[in-house]
């Protein structure tokens, strides 16, 4: 079931490349717009100076300090912009997650936007509940770290607690909660659950189906590699645009990983449902089996 579910993720990417492009394009547009003030600021401050080409080639801390002096207001505005953009992005992420789940369920023939429209509000509520879990986890890690640092109060101890243990716990914990969150969203969409029931389903379902963990882990690693490649690889030889285009190629792969990731998890969830509830699975899978892309009417609750 694990292998089939994993493959289903790749099938989802093949079947619905438009979703990959949509996810990629929205991220690109959002980031491009946010980065626009940087262009304006540097164009105004550095453009007339003649230092632009040199600085693009080689970092100069003194000149950058002068730039920050002059463009500081714009840059601090960017920080503010990011501050409020992140919550908005999380709302959007809640929307496109359920949109993807809806679009990829039952063989992948449903409308993405219909899923967004129908489930986004509940997905935001679900996200708030999981957000609470995240806060609890972060608070717990913080308390644990401070407690350990008091006990293990040397330089080595502090390093291990704050630079090794705490970041590891935060990343693993957040990934774990994200896994639960994924299945909560799937339950919300596939089983038409209410927010609290979807939350509980997400919290319990993966524990009853342990293969959910390695499935998540594999996609997590693939996504992480796609995300890290633009940073790790140095494409300076290709010039400014060459570097950007190569980075975008990897980021397109990252968007594909998102679609594949959800595709795998939805397929896994549905396969388990079919196995555990053959009657329901038969009833639900029948129309999907006959469907063609984009034509399937949204099914009502089971």
């Amino acid at each position, binding site marked *: 079931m694990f292998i089939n579910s994993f493959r289903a993720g790749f099938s989802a990417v093949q079947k619905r490349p438009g979703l990959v492009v949509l996810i990629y394009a929205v991220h690109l547009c959002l980031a491009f717009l946010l980065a626009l003030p*940087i262009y304006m600021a540097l164009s105004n401050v550095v*453009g007339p100076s003649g230092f632009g080409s040199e600085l693009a080639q080689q970092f100069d801390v003194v000149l950058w300090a002068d730039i920050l002096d002059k463009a500081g207001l714009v840059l601090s505005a960017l920080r503010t912009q990011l501050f409020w953009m992140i919550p908005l992005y999380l709302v959007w992420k809640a929307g496109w997650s359920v949109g993807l789940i809806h679009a990829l369920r039952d063989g992948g023939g449903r409308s993405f936007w219909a899923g967004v429209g129908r489930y986004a509000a509940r997905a935001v509520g679900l996200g708030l509940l999981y957000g609470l879990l995240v806060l609890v986890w972060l608070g717990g890690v913080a308390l644990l770290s401070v407690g350990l640092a008091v006990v293990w109060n040397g330089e080595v101890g502090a390093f291990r607690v704050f630079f090794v243990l705490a970041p590891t716990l935060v990343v693993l914990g957040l990934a774990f909660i994200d896994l639960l969150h994924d299945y909560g969203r799937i339950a919300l969409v596939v089983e038409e659950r209410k927010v609290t029931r979807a939350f509980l389903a997400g919290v319990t379902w993966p524990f009853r189906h342990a293969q959910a963990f390695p499935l998540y882990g594999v996609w997590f690693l693939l996504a992480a590699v796609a995300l890290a490649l633009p940073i790790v690889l140095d494409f300076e030889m290709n010039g400014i645009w060459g570097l950007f285009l190569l980075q975008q190629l990897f980021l397109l792969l990252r968007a594909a990983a998102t679609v594949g990731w959800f595709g795998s998890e939805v397929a896994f969830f549905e396969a388990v449902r079919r196995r555990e509830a053959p009657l329901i699975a038969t009833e639900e899978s029948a129309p999907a089996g006959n469907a063609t892309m984009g034509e399937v009417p949204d099914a009502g609750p089971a």
Partner: protein
Amino acid sequence: MLSRICFVLAALALLPFAPALAQPTATAPRTTIADGPLSDRRVSYTITATLDPEARTVQGSERVTWRNPDRAPVGELQFHLYLNAFKNERSTFMRESGGKHRGFSARGTDVWGGIDVTRMAIAPPQPGDTAPPGAYSAEETDLTDRIRFIQPDDGNPDDQTVIAVTLPRPVAPGETIALDIDFTALMPKVVARTGWAETEQGHRFFMVAQWFPKLGVYEEPGVRYVPADAPHGQWNTHQFHANTEFYADFGTYRVTMTVPEAYVVGASGVRVNETTEAGARTLTYQADDVHDFAWTASPDFLEYTDTWRHVNLRLLLQPHHKAQAERHFKAVKAALDRYDAWVGEYPYTTLTLVDGIGGSNGMEYPTLITCGTTYKMPGWMRLPELVTVHEFGHQYFYGMIASNEFEEAWLDEGINSYFEARIMDDAYGPGAVVKLPYIQVSDEGMQRLMYTKNAPDRGAVFTRAWEYEDAEDYSKATYAKPATLLLTLENYLGRETTDQVFQTYYDRWRFRHPTTRDFIAVAEEVSGMDLGWFFDQYVYGVAVVDYEVASLRSSKAEPPEGTEGDWYESRVEVHRKQDGVFPQTLLVRFEDGSEERLAWDGVDAWKRFTFHKAARAAEAYLDPDNAVRLDVNRLDNRKIAGTDNTLARKEQLDLTSLLQQVFYLIAGLF
């Protein structure tokens, strides 16, 4: 031939016993490579000290001798009791620092320290004393009751960092007096680079510095700012302030310290004796031609040794930093090489590098420096190297060229920061301090930023250290600004002349007490230039350098007679935006690839340069060689005819990709 072979065989046979045979004739290790004294050795200290780690005390007895250098008798001696700065929150040090200093916080019962002089007496006559025998009656020899605290700087009655003792009989010119002093030093929790701290292994580490009653400096007429025709000299014994360091006379130190057997000891000078008995280790160190003595003890030090020419290098490292031993040696050798080539010889035979704990790090004592690093310090961040190079530099500036750190701190910290920048950048390249794939920070760049972006118009370099408004002004004006102004001066005079200035300064003033005035005199003498305009503005004053290319315009013009084609009049207007004046170079590039390089004295508030050429001016660039490091805004030194958005585009695209990554990361975790 046979006899020669027999001789060689006999010699080889004796080789295993060579150390044993050599032992009876072994002489004490030399403290310097000089044949005789390097300084006038006006003082000498013979100290016996016992460290009690549990009680964190050092019980000590010292015999201190002092020779009156004046032509007038001197009836009073003054001593520093530096440790009393950490006696309570009422000392001048604590009042000025607000109880916080480099990680020290005046909280808890075991943080305070202090020094108690329990007995002070005129020493019994010694063979060779210049004092007449029987000069003092029995009552007169005990000076304990004559000790009084004085506060020459701020009158704070609670400050007990300086004592004065009126002698029963003045010390005659040229006469030497010897005192016996018993004292108990209570080591504070590490503060201002002295005290105790707990090691990773749970033991006690001690940095025993500024720990004994130490004579101030008696400045006779003609020394530093005491007029040569003054009737007599005066003591220069400042209180210990939050922003001040030290000042003392050269002499000899012989210190015998007893510590628990498990403790590893590092100290100024060379070890001349070591015995172990009844669980205690007793070591004797000799240091000559130095003005201070510090030592450290910890049961957890790892010891590494190396050599550089005549210098025995010893590194005492915290066990969890053992991976960084080579970084320390490499850095100190880089410094030794370059100081030797650029300034002068390091005459001492030892150098001990101590990896202390917390606030004990980053300090200099004669032939002993504290460096400091942290666990897993990444290789791209060269802070251990920087601190090691900096602290080693103090062996020259204040170590040998012993300016007054209280009154003219820039002469040691500032000049040393200048050499730190040169050495770091020369040894480690453009990313000397930080070297990441996309961000490289040089030491010179770091010093420049610390000055130019930190209220450059506040706090003159020539200011008594405790008179700066705050620690930030002190730090900037004492370290970063002098480094930056000396880098600027170097570019003005040329590297070769600058090196000659420092070599002459070293030759002339080592083992003496120079002033700012003396340094300027050497610079002017060697360069053959009047540099008053420079030092007046940037050392004695707070002038700020900021020039800009205000405008660059070209318009069509009549061609000269007899020529054809398009001609242009290009006008470049340059401004002096602040009060600092520095000669400038203006480079103008034209569209046809030609260039003109012009000099401007930089005195006027603005100046317009006009060019008549067959091509438009494409670029005007003030200080194209980046020589005037004092300029607080380099970005406005250059202007082009159009707009170059290469950087703007690159950063926008980079940020676009980065933000996408951030969003995906958020999406992947929430």
